[in-house]
């Protein structure tokens, strides 16, 4: 039990994610979390106005069940399988974060400077969450997949389009962290 309560090392976590991918393939489906965003749009009636959302979303219900499970898994891990969270970030990361104005680095999963209700409902905080979410939603469909569909499933099956998409993920991420963050924070 002590091992479970500790944060899991990368060499345990990575193979576990591959097992998730493989189980879904074994069940005759495929691993892709961003597809659910399209499914949810279709359930909301987007198919009446936009061709892209006109598909049999009922065939995707299994994937929404995976999402429901993921939420439950997050709840279980956070409430029952974790010691008080202390993320073992590198010293240089903590230093960089402090200089950007994030003072509670490693005390929780997410910085209160962005995700506490006070921060999230400030003009700047709300803009960041909305723009960030929008870019993820737009980009993932444009690229035809996200970290699960491209970085895990696509790379595991040695597909070139996924490698290109992952290179794109990193171009975007590096631009954001190295060039835009210093302006924002």
């Amino acid at each position, binding site marked *: 039990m002590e091992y479970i309560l500790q944060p899991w090392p990368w060499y345990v*976590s990575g193979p576990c994610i591959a097992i998730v991918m493989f189980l879904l393939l074994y069940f005759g489906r495929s691993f892709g979390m961003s597809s659910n965003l399209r499914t949810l749009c279709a359930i909301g009636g987007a198919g009446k106005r936009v061709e892209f959302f006109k598909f049999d979303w009922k065939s995707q*219900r299994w994937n929404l069940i995976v*999402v429901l499970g993921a939420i439950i898994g997050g709840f279980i891990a956070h409430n029952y399988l974790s010691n008080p969270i202390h993320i073992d970030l590198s010293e240089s990361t903590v230093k960089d974060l402090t200089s950007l104005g994030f003072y509670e680095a490693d005390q929780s999963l997410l910085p209160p400077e962005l995700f506490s209700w006070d921060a999230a409902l400030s003009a700047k905080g709300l803009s960041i969450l909305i723009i*960030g979410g929008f870019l*993820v939603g737009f980009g993932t469909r444009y690229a035809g997949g996200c*970290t699960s569909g491209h970085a895990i499933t696509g790379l595991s099956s040695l597909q070139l389009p996924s490698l*290109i998409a992952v290179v794109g993920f990193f171009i975007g991420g590096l631009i954001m962290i190295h060039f835009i963050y210093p302006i924002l924070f």
Partner: protein
Amino acid sequence: MGKYIKFLLVGIFFGIVLVKSEAVSWYRIFEMFKFQSFHMYGIIGTAVGTGIILLLLSNQLNLKTIKGNAIKVPLKEKGLVRYIIGGTIFGLGWALCGACPGPMYILVGTGVFTILIVIAAALLGTYVYGVLKNKLPH
């Protein structure tokens, strides 16, 4: 309902793994793009490495799905523009809010309800893509 139980269990396992690995943490994503720790690279690297081995093995052993078909991964369409531009847009968002689609849902379970704002915005982004799809280079 019975046939959905296995998907629920896989989802629960996925949620637990991503929280316990700290891959759902905004801080870990920041650290990854700063190249200041091996942690996230180790997770992605071993996931892909294990994935390659599992797929090669299942191919060699001719493993079947529970429906009796060959196990195969859906092929992505060929292309360059959509993957590089779409991927870059995704990366900008991923680094800005520190969450990709899987972790967004999982974080709801950990009690961070402000992430619902991010999810709502991601739905809007997906919708806008659907509207603009035919006008974008792919």
